[in-house]
């Protein structure tokens, strides 16, 4: 009995798994020719965590991010953005600056978005956290070769994140898949799973996070 308890707790220590809900919404609008603004809200709500001894469902507001980006379209296929994020989290709310380039690749029936992003997070009593990330996201229509109003699509994405803070670095991976509802070009709804793993470079620790994600993308 003691052995089982010991095993399960040490497993939980090294291999932590959490599950939760992850609503997000983005609102974009044009500012001037070629310039646009995007506000994004995303929020993580933990429901299950193997580190809680009893492993019961327990609701916890994990964090909420408020982001704003100013983007400039360089060509129909390339867009650059600078952004700012305010994170509301237990302990300390943080500020983050973000820079990104997104590139659209079109194929006959599907399209792929490449996103290269760097961000810097500022803490009161800790040094700067720097991250470099690359995301590839495919969008495939489910009815026919082109996405028309009222049709559905599938998205699959993977993002690799390298981070470094005070000389210690780590990797995180985010794999997502979602079903998208293409109401029209200015209104899209996606629901799916976001599977995140991190602590790749930290010894004796590995974390899995699974989020049920639902996001609304609105453009004015």
């Amino acid at each position, binding site marked *: 009995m003691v052995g089982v308890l010991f095993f399960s707790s040490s497993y939980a220590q090294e291999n932590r798994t959490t599950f939760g809900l992850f609503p997000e919404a983005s609102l974009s609008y044009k500012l001037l020719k070629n310039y646009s603004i995007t506000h994004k809200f995303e929020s993580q709500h933990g429901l299950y965590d193997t580190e809680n001894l009893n492993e019961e469902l327990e609701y916890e507001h994990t964090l909420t991010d408020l982001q704003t980006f100013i983007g400039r379209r360089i*060509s129909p296929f390339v867009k650059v953005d600078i952004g700012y994020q305010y994170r509301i989290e237990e302990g300390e709310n943080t500020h983050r600056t973000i820079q990104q380039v*997104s590139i659209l690749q079109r194929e006959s029936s599907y399209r792929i978005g490449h996103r290269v992003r760097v961000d810097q997070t500022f803490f009161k009593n800790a040094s700067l956290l720097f991250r470099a990330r690359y995301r590839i996201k495919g969008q495939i229509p489910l009815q026919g*070769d*082109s996405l028309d109003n009222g049709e559905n699509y599938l998205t699959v994405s993977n993002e690799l994140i390298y981070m470094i803070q005070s000389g210690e670095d780590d990797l995180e991976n985010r794999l997502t898949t979602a079903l998208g509802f293409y*109401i*029209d070009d200015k209104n899209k709804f996606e629901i799916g799973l976001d599977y995140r793993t991190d602590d790749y470079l930290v010894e004796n620790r590995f974390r899995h996070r699974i989020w049920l994600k639902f996001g609304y993308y609105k453009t004015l």
Partner: protein
Amino acid sequence: MTYYLRLLFIIFSVTYGVAQEKNEIEKRVKKDEIPKQAKEWLKDAFEQKRRTKWYYQTDGVKEVYEAKLKQNKHLHSVEFDLKGNVENIEIKIKENEIREEAYQGIFDYFKSNYTRYSLKKIQIQYTGEADDLEDLIDENEIENLVINYEIEYYGKTDNDNILWEGLFDANGKLIEKRSLNLKLTDNLDY
């Protein structure tokens, strides 16, 4: 939590109602729904067995069926009216496959109108009678057919940075062009 779900549901249902006015539709259709005449023409022209995908398309005014298939490593799109009469054939080609008569004119147009350009998709379009279109496919013979080029290109001028679809005639003269709006990338960028 239920608050978010309810909020999302409300936004979703409101916008869904607004978005009912569709114009362009393209969807896959089953082979059974295609008029016999169209299937027969296709079988006569493209003799070998080919995997064909059928689509229904409308821009709100004109309705057509379209067959997409590959022949000689080229993607062919064959358009039929709803009764099954073949109307035109579009074949996806590479830059160096543009016929000589048109090549000069097309590239002169690009060079003189844009500081930078790149061709994204080129289709040669043949329009004509069913028999002549059939000869094009099975005999490689061009007779009584109107040839146009539909070219999707990106052209940069000092003021503009736009993706276009231009229609050029057999001699490479621009007939018309329209700007293409790419679908928004908000869900790919953020």
